[in-house]
């Protein structure tokens, strides 16, 4: 596919916290769905659309994101021209801190160095598998200044949310942030498109005003001066706004229809290859309704769970309703129910951890329990 657009992904979102999971890493770098990180979905959408230049905007805690993205080779973004660029906050020798809107200077340089007609700008709290070709086609035909994707989720995924009110031509007439009560169910998906030259003008204007918060919302606020059109996306969208929605979205992957819409569309979700060995299911194991990644060794009982790469579940242990991240070791005779275990956690023999559907127990990265 070919698309005359560049991509920008906002790796952080200061309105969203996933507690212990977002403590060591950017929102975009949070593992999701077995062998992926959240950013893999949006990055794959962009690459599968034909985008060949992607900038990732980071604020802090970007080490794990950089480890994951590397040169961009896994997404075919290791290119001489354009490719993948990580854009950390911009600090030059004069400005020791990143105040006064300086962090946008690096972004502006990056956007200016591209040659594409359009930009796709996306948040990192959504899991989706689509292409943006139709989105941009419709945007061009509509003659709007900017287009933004939404669906009819309303406020059911909790905060943060942006709800649109539109006129009959779907031009946005109002944008509500976390409304208590609203008649509209048009909930922003956090993907917008506009001409690259317009984005340059808008960022330059923000910098001139000392505005430091660049993001989807700061652009949507321009609805009073720009024609911003809402584009309805009817496919699968999983929203990750907090630990509960993260856990629920993970559990939704156990549904055949959800997995089919996310993973088997014909466009692959790409990620960093880890070269783990195949998963080994041992004789005494009992696995029901589980998504299991390479390098796992399963000797115990696993049900309704997502296992990332390299997880060991030892004999006589029971894992239910759990999200177990990379390289977690679960020893013998453990019972784990409604838990999220972050990377490299070690669960000692005989441990029992039982959370609740709405409040899963979260164990820190590398913790020994």
């Amino acid at each position, binding site marked *: 596919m070919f698309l005359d657009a560049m991509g920008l992904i906002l790796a952080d979102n200061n309105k969203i916290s996933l507690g212990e999971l977002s403590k060591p890493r950017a929102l975009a770098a949070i593992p999701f*769905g*077995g*062998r992926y990180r959240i950013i893999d979905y949006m990055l794959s959408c962009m690459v599968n659309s034909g985008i060949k230049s992607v900038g990732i905007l980071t604020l802090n805690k970007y080490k794990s994101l950089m480890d994951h993205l590397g040169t961009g*080779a896994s997404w075919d973004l290791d290119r001489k021209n354009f490719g993948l660029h990580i854009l950390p906050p911009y600090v030059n020798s004069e400005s020791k801190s990143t105040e006064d809107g300086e962090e946008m200077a690096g972004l502006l340089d990056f956007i200016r160095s591209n040659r594409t007609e359009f930009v796709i700008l996306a948040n990192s709290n959504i899991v989706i598998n689509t292409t943006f070709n139709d989105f941009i086609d419709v945007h061009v035909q509509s003659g709007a200044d900017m287009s933004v994707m939404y669906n009819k989720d309303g406020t059911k995924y909790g905060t943060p949310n942006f709800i649109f009110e539109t006129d009959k031509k779907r031009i946005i007439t109002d944008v509500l942030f976390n409304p208590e009560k609203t008649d509209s169910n048009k909930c922003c998906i956090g993907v917008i498109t506009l001409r690259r030259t317009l984005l340059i003008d808008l960022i330059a204007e923000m910098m001139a005003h000392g505005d430091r918060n660049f993001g989807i919302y700061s652009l949507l606020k321009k609805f009073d001066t720009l024609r911003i059109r809402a584009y309805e996306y009817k496919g699968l969208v999983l929203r990750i706004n907090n630990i509960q929605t993260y856990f629920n979205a993970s559990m939704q992957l*156990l549904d*055949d229809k959800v*997995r089919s819409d*996310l*993973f*088997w569309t014909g466009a*692959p*979700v*790409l*990620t960093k*290859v880890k*070269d*783990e*060995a*195949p*998963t*080994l*299911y*041992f*004789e*005494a*194991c009992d*696995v*029901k*309704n*589980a*998504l*299991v*990644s*390479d*390098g796992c*060794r399963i000797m115990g009982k696993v*049900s309704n769970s*997502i*296992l990332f790469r390299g997880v060991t579940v030892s004999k006589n242990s029971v894992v239910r309703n759990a999200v177990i991240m990379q390289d977690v070791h679960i020893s013998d005779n453990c019972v784990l129910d409604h838990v999220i275990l972050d990377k490299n956690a070690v669960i000692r023999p005989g441990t029992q951890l039982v959370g609740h559907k709405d409040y899963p127990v979260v164990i820190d990265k590398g913790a020994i329990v």
Partner: protein
Amino acid sequence: MAKAEIVAMILAGGQGSRLGVLTKNIAKPAVPFGSRYRIIDFPLSNCSNSGIETVGVLSQYQPLALNTYVGNGHPWDLDRNNGGAFILPPYLRSGKSDWYKGTANAIYQNREFLDDCGAKYVIVLSGDHIYKMNYARMIREHIDMEADATLAVIEVPWEETSRFGILNTGPKDAIVSFIEKPKKAKSNLASMGVYVFTWSVLRDVLVEDENDSDSDNDFGKNIVPRMLSHDMKLFAYRFSGYWKDVGTISSLWESNMDLLDRPEEINLIDRNWRIYSRNPSKPSNYISGDATVSMSAMTDGCQIYGTVLHSVLSDSVTVEKGAVVKDSVLLPGVTVKSGAFLDKCIVGFGTIIGKGVRAGASIEGESPYLNTHICSEGIVVIEKGLKIKDHSIIPANSQVDCDLDVKDESNVIEETFRV
């Protein structure tokens, strides 16, 4: 051209005719193995992990899949500016041109490649063995002993010596004689098909061998005996660990089963010696609430709704509800429809096993597909890209081959498609 003191040459041109339909359209080294690998991943990963960064892959028979798979060598870290992976097919010359006539002739025809690399040592590997080996140690020993050639050897059970090339050694493991498949062996040291040569010496021997019209131009049969007859210094390098030739259907099946029965031997989870492979980019494997899975290996993209017992599944295999897969090896993209029963089967890329099909070692009966030349121990082999008719019966030791002329009522193939 970039210089490399040590160059690996992987012999990947053989047909592997004993693997029957599995190698009808692809070279043996490109045959999937062990759920997420191809056979050639083992020598390529061994090279990469041993620090050998210039690797020639000699391809000849049905090279398309192999060449595509190796590509620029990226999965094995062999996409180097200085060196890297090179696919070396036979080519036309202004003078006399030929296909690769034998393993030694293949290297002979690429002597200019090795010269241009500035190779001092060349390690010759075959593309049909499953093992993990640090070649760097063997090369160091070769250099320390000032050897002309060093052959990796492994002790095999005495009763199996007649299947291998056997080396008789003297003091310091100096090779005294080499006998291909001896009836009565004096030693149980078998050649593993891993040779280190000092290039300047080998080059002369290859030229001499080429000029001998009686020679088969084969390393084991001709080059090693020729070097011994010239009183050259040949040593054996002892290797211990998992090593298996997967040149036949039964050994390919056994080696796959070894991953389940003795996973600690080949130890694929060893992070100090990873085996790399090209990734299919599929989601994690899914085991449904109705499924039963035991003693099995699988990888990305598998979707299991039925029963999988003691089997090795490659990527993107689907086993429907009510289907039973036992002691089998399913290659990428196979679908097993509901109610089907597979017992000791090897099924090729993308083949669809229809509803209620019964195939395998425990199925008795006559069949036009019986082929004891290729199949043994009850193993059933089914070609890639087939739709097997619902409720077909395929008895033990059958090979389902779409080129076989079988009358309608006993034909189990509903359609064929490209995969």
